[in-house]
């Protein structure tokens, strides 16, 4: 395919140089570090992130105006956080002019679509200052995560320290040190169905995208994509925010990222195509083509 990783200027393996950030970061602390830098430098004046929600491990979109607030949003929550729901409000009652936003590939698509076709999004397009995308294979509703952790892994949600999908398994780490792994096969039926038509793995439309795949534990794979992203990334590098290694020198490297991206896209492309003949002489809608 060759386009599975999207357009990018550079790709590196990186992690934040801040011990504080790394303490609770999912991987290399890229999102938290880059937003913290951009906030300090006035490149953004706030960022929409997945903050802590009302229930354990349920994210809630929030607007972080300080590094402390960014810290509270570290870590992956494997269920939906509708970050784009705040995209207009930040320019209204929050009074932001330069907005940062983090999200999954589909959320990056929403941001870009909103910028080009701002239906009901007056004054939003020019205020997106930094969009950071995170790799995403699939997502889950909150109820799914509850069931996976409480029923399948047999752990109480509030006592979970970290969750991770990697190396073919769903990992649940307890505060008390226990580790439970579930084969991914178990998780499939809990995926949100909308993810099955998603053709983007590494947030192709973000300014900077990042994820764990391709880099060793504690490190992240980073794609620097747009001019804006490149500019901010270079400045953050010069300011000593990140440690990096050329992606070619790390294992498993881009090869694995490409492989997983291709798998996701071809599997989901099939789902998209099967929708055309879903009924008897009737199709289900395909959002990638204009209606006849």
């Amino acid at each position: 395919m060759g386009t599975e990783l999207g357009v990018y200027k550079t790709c590196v393996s990186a992690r934040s140089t801040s011990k504080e950030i790394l303490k609770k970061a999912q991987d290399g602390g890229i999102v938290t570090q880059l937003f913290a830098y951009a906030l300090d430098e006035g490149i953004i004046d706030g960022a929409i992130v997945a903050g802590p929600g009302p229930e354990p491990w349920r994210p809630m979109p929030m607007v972080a105006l300080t590094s402390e607030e960014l810290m509270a949003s570290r870590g992956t929550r494997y269920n939906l956080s509708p970050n784009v729901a705040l995209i207009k409000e930040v320019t209204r009652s929050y009074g932001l002019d330069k907005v940062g936003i983090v999200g999954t590939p589909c959320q990056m698509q929403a941001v870009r679509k909103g910028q080009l076709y701002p239906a009901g999004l007056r004054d939003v397009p020019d205020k997106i200052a930094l969009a950071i995308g995170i790799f995403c294979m699939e997502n889950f509703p909150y109820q799914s995560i509850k069931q996976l952790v409480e029923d399948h892994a047999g752990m109480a949600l509030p006592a979970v320290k970290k969750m991770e999908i990697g190396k073919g398994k769903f990992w649940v780490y307890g505060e008390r040190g226990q580790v439970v792994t579930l084969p991914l096969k178990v998780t499939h039926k809990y995926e949100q169905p909308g993810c099955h038509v998603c053709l983007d793995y590494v947030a192709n439309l973000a300014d900077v995208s990042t994820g764990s795949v391709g880099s060793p534990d504690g490190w992240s794979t980073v794609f620097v994509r747009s001019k804006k992203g490149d500019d901010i990334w270079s400045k953050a590098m010069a300011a000593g925010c990140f440690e990096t290694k050329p992606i070619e020198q790390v294992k498993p490297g881009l090869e694995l990222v490409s492989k997983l991206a291709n798998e996701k896209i071809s599997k989901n492309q099939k789902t998209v195509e099967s929708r055309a003949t879903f009924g008897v002489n009737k199709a289900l809608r395909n959002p990638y083509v204009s209606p006849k």
Partner: protein
Amino acid sequence: MSKVVEISPTTRHEGHSKLVLKVNDEGIIERGDWLSITPVRGVEKLAIGKTMDQVPKIASRVCGICPIAHTLAGIEAMEGSIRCEIPEDAKLLRVILQAANRLHSIALHNILILPDFYIPGTETKINPFTPEEPVRSVAKRIQRIREIGQTIGEIAGGEAVHPSNPRVGGMYKACSERAVYKMYDLAKEGLTLAHQQMEFMLAVLNNMKKRDWTDVAGKQIPLPKTLGYHDLGYMASHPMYASSNLDEIPGWDPDRWTDVRPWDWYMGEVEVSLADPSYPIGGTSPVGTKANPQMEACTGVPLYDGAPVEVGPRARLATYKNFTEKGTWAQHVARQLEYTDCCYTMINALDAYNPSGKVLADCIPQGDGSMGWAANEAPRGCDVHLAKVKDGRVLWYEMLVPTTWNFPTCSRALTGAPWQVAELIVRGYDPCVSCATHMIVVDEDKRIVAQKLIQ
């Protein structure tokens, strides 16, 4: 022998209206009717049975220039009916929204009227779209003022056009400290520009007042000193914001309001007998055209103390600041004088506003069917909404919008003017004809098919 001339449509104001004018041999208007011919949307009738939260959002869509007025008047009428007092900080956000919208609206109206006026001391009329100075800088200033008004409105109100933040019981969102500073900076910038723009407009108006004639399609049309005078009264409920039945001393009285139908007030059928193909742009209606203002008018005629009244900036200044000038120029002057008020109102409200304050009432009653009303001082004047809410649903809804009040008043004010400047008189009211059109249902033949709906 009087003749009838018709200007249809009128231009450089919001909505769709026309002028049917009986003139004498000199072309001076003996009796004029200015009426809405905007199709009726019937918002008040479709509101019945809907929730009190939904109706003000629908009412907002009556007009995109002053949606703030309809949103706030609608919501406050509901609050008046259910007897809900909103928190102080919610009120302050509404006041900021109100003033921001008025600022933008005055500036927009500058664009609409400037082509009627001359660059002081010259015989050149002002074309706001010219790239040449001095007009270019004025146009840029107007656009910046509008941008400031719209941006502040967007922050305080959620959206500049059809504000999303106001709700029954207060506001959805409090504004952050950063948002407050942003609005403050903008209001300060706006204040300076509003001062400059007001001075400019007053100079233009003073120059016009001194003129004896104006050019319309290459002809010199005399300008009477009493242009736009009428001897009807005026009505205003508050100098800047609004009044409602919850106020200790309400600024409006529903018992003094009556509504009559257009056929009690407008002319019956007439036939156009005078036409001027050179009237810009496209000429007047051809001779032989039939007009019937009684039947064609798409508005009711609200009366206060049994007579039409003028509402708007001049009415506000006359009511609250002893402003005594009359007529078209005075209306324009009064409107410019409100420019800086808008900015001071925002600055004062921002000073008083507490970003961590509550913006939603603890208790929102669902209503027992009592009547409530709110009179919002829209840019164009007093916008009264009346409502009865029971169990959260609207039982009855009525909107008495500024331009509806002004239609019959302005019609009378046409008398004595050369017909070629009738539109100048109309524009003195900054009409918003969409706002004024919401009640009578007519069929394709313009016959009223639902007159019983008019109460």
